[in-house]
C-alpha cells in the first residue's frame, strides 16, 4: 500500500506543474462542454457520435490504465484548484443553455438522480446491502413534504427537514428486519417494503390515490419565488435555474457527506461489512447498528431529493416511485461503479439522460436502454469507474 503511494508521489513530482494544471482544467472544461453538447443535442447522429466518443474514452482507460493514474495524480495535486473550477463551471452552466428549458429540465433530473444514487451507494457500494427501496424513500420524502405544504401551508424550507425526518424514521423501520436477513432475503424485504409503500400511496385517499397530488406551491427565498426567473446583471435566466442551483447544492452536500463518511470510521465499518459480515462482527463492529444506519442515511438523502422533485414539478403521483425507479437507481450505482463517488454520479447522469436522448428511437428506447445496460455490465463488469483501494497518507 505505502509502496504504491510512494511511487505515485514521485511520479507527480517529476512532472512539471503546468502539465497537471492543464490536465485538470482541460478535463473539467472538456467534460462540461461534452455534457452540455449531450444535453442540447437533438440530431441522432450527434448523439450516436457522442456515445461513441464516450465509449472510446472508456475503452482508452481500460486499455491504458496509466492514463487513468496520471489523471488521478493531477487531480490529487491540484485539489483546491479542481474544486474551485468545478464549482465555477456548475454556477456558470445554466447561463450557457438558458434558452433550452428541456436541457435544463434534464439536467435537474440528472442532479436529483445523482443524489439518489449517492444515497444508495452508502448501502450497495459501501456495505453491499441490496436495497430495492430507495425509490420508496424518495417517494416518502416527496409525499411528506408535499402533504404538509398543501394542507398546512408549511414552507419548503420547513418541509425539507420534516420530509427527511419522516423518511429516516421509515428507513430505521426498514432497517430493523435487515438485522437478521441477508443477501437475496434482504433484497426481498426491501422489494416488499417498496411495493407496500407504492401500493399504499396508490390506494389511500389522503395521498390522492393514483391521481397523486397537484398544486405543490413553489418555494420562496428572501421574497424571491422559485417560480419566477432569476434576473442578474441584466441577464434573465428561466425559473428552472432556481431549482438547478438548489439541486446542485444538494449534490454538493451529498458528495461532501459521502466523502466524509467514506473517510470516517463509519465508512470503514461499512467496507468491513461488505468484505465479510461475520469477520466484521468478530472484530467487534456492531454490524446491526451500521446496517440500520446505512438504511437511515440512504432514506435521509433520498427524502431531500424527493422534496426538491415534488416542489420542482409541483405534481407527484405514485407512478414516480415504483419498483422500477428503485431498480434504475440501483443500476446507476452498479453501472457507474460501486463505492466510487465520481462513478456513481457519472452513472446517474448517463442513465438519466440516455433514455431521453434515445427518444429518436421513439418506442424502442426502453428496449435499447435495457440492452445498453446489459452491454455495460458485460463490457465493464466493475462499473465505469471501478472501486479504488483506500489510500492513506497520500490524500488530504
Amino acid at each position, binding site marked *: 500500500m505505502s509502496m504504491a503511494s510512494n511511487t505515485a508521489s514521485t511520479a507527480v513530482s517529476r512532472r512539471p506543474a503546468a502539465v497537471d494544471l492543464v490536465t485538470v482544467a482541460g478535463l473539467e472544461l472538456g467534460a462540461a462542454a461534452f455534457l452540455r453538447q449531450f444535453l442540447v443535442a437533438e440530431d441522432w447522429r450527434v448523439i450516436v457520435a457522442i456515445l461513441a466518443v464516450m465509449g472510446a474514452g472508456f475503452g482508452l482507460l481500460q486499455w491504458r490504465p496509466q492514463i487513468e493514474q496520471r489523471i488521478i495524480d493531477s487531480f490529487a495535486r491540484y485539489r483546491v484548484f479542481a474544486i474551485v473550477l468545478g464549482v465555477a463551471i456548475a454556477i456558470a452552466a445554466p447561463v450557457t443553455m438558458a434558452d433550452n428549458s428541456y436541457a435544463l429540465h434534464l439536467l435537474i433530473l440528472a442532479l436529483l438522480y445523482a443524489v439518489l444514487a449517492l444515497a444508495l451507494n452508502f448501502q450497495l457500494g459501501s456495505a453491499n446491502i441490496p436495497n430495492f427501496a430507495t425509490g420508496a424513500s424518495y417517494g416518502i420524502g416527496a409525499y411528506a413534504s408535499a402533504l404538509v405544504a398543501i394542507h398546512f401551508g408549511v414552507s419548503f424550507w420547513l418541509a425539507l427537514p420534516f420530509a427527511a425526518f419522516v423518511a429516516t424514521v421509515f428507513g430505521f423501520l426498514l432497517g430493523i428486519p435487515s438485522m437478521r*436477513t441477508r443477501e437475496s432475503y434482504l433484497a*426481498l424485504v426491501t*422489494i416488499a417494503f417498496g411495493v407496500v409503500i407504492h401500493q399504499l400511496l396508490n390506494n389511500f385517499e389522503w395521498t390522492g390515490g393514483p391521481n397523486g397530488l397537484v398544486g405543490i406551491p413553489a418555494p420562496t427565498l428572501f421574497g424571491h419565488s422559485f417560480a419566477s426567473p432569476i434576473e442578474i446583471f441584466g441577464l434573465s435566466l428561466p425559473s428552472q435555474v432556481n431549482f438547478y442551483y438548489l439541486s446542485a447544492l444538494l449534490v454538493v452536500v451529498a458528495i461532501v457527506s459521502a466523502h466524509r463518511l467514506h473517510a470516517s470510521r463509519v465508512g470503514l465499518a461499512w467496507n468491513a461489512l461488505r468484505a465479510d459480515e461475520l469477520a466484521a462482527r468478530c472484530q467487534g463492529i456492531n454490524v446491526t447498528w451500521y446496517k440500520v444506519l446505512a438504511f437511515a442515511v440512504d432514506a435521509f438523502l433520498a427524502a431531500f431529493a424527493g422534496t426538491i422533485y415534488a416542489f420542482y414539478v409541483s405534481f407527484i403521483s405514485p407512478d414516480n416511485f415504483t419498483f422500477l425507479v428503485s431498480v434504475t437507481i440501483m443500476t446507476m450505482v452498479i453501472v457507474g461503479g460501486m463505492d466510487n463517488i465520481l462513478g456513481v454520479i457519472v452513472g446517474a447522469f448517463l442513465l438519466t439522460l440516455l433514455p431521453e436522448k434515445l427518444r429518436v428511437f421513439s418506442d424502442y428506447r426502453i428496449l435499447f436502454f435495457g440492452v445498453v445496460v446489459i452491454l455495460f455490465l458485460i463490457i465493464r463488469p466493475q462499473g465505469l469507474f471501478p472501486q479504488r483501494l483506500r489510500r492513506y497518507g497520500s490524500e488530504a
Partner: protein
Amino acid sequence: MSGILVQQLLNWLTLGCIYALIAVGFSLLFGVLKVIHFSHGDVALVAPFFALAIVQAMISSAAGTIDPASLIIGCVVAIMLTGLLGVLLDWLVIRRFRYAPPMMALVATVALGTVLREAVRHLFPNGSNPHAFPHLATSRIALPGLGEVPTFSVLVIVASVLAVALLFFILHRTTLGVRIRAVSQDLEAARLMAIDPSRIFWATFFIASAIGAVGGLFFASYAGVVRFDFGIQAGLIGFSAAVVGGLGSMVGAIIGSLLIAGLDTIVQATIPDGTSYRLVFAFLLVILVLVFKPSGLLGRVIVEKV
C-alpha cells in the same frame, strides 16, 4: 361443506397453484445458479403471447373461432418455446455472469426482464394494449361431495400437481435429475465427476421456464387478459413465494405460494375493497415471515437443496 367455503377454498388452491408454478422455477434456478433469475416472471408471461400468436396463425388459415384443439396445440408449443427462450437467455446473457458477484447478475437479469417486456410490446402486433386471453375452461363440473365447481380450477390444480410431480420425478428418478442436484450441491465436485455444468444449466433453464410457462398461461387465463407488463407482478409474487418458502427448496416454494395465495383470497373475500390492498398484505406477510425466519420457512431445515 357450504358452497361459498368450497368456492373460496378452490379459489385459494387455484391461485396458489398458479403462483407455485412460477415460484418453483425461481427456486430451481437459484438452487443451481446461486443467482436470482429476476426476469423469470417475464419469461413465464411470454408464454401466453406465444400461444396467442400460434392460435391466431391457425385461425387465419381455418377462419373461425378458437377451437379447443388449436388452443391446446398453441399452449403446448408455447410451453416448449418458452423453455427454449429460457435457454436462449442463459446462452446470450446470464452465463456471462456465472463468476460475477451475485448483485451484478441480479441487475443484469432485471435489465433482461425490461428487454423481454419491451420486446413483447413491440414485436407482438399491437403489443402495448391488453389482449383478451381465452379461458382454458369456462364450464362447471360436478364433483362428488363438493357440488358444481369451475372446471378451470380443477384443470389448474390437476395440471399443477402433474407438473410438480413430473419435476420431482425428473429430479429424483432420472440421471439428469441426479446431475442437476449434484451441480446444485457443489459445482466443482460435479465437474470432477465429468458432469458438463453448462448442459445442466441449460436443462435447468428449460425445465424452469417451461413450468413457468404453464403458470404464465394459467395466469393469463385466470385474468382473462394478458398484458406485456404482467411479468413484473407475476415475477414479484413468484419470487416472494420462493423466498418465503426458502430459496432452493421446491416444497418451500409450494408452501410459500399457498401461503401468499391464502392471504390473498382471505383479504379479497373479507375486507371490503380488499382487492386494491391485496399486494400490501401479501408483502407485509413476506416481511413478517422473513423477520422471524430470516432464511425462509424451509430455508436451512432441508439439507438437500435443489
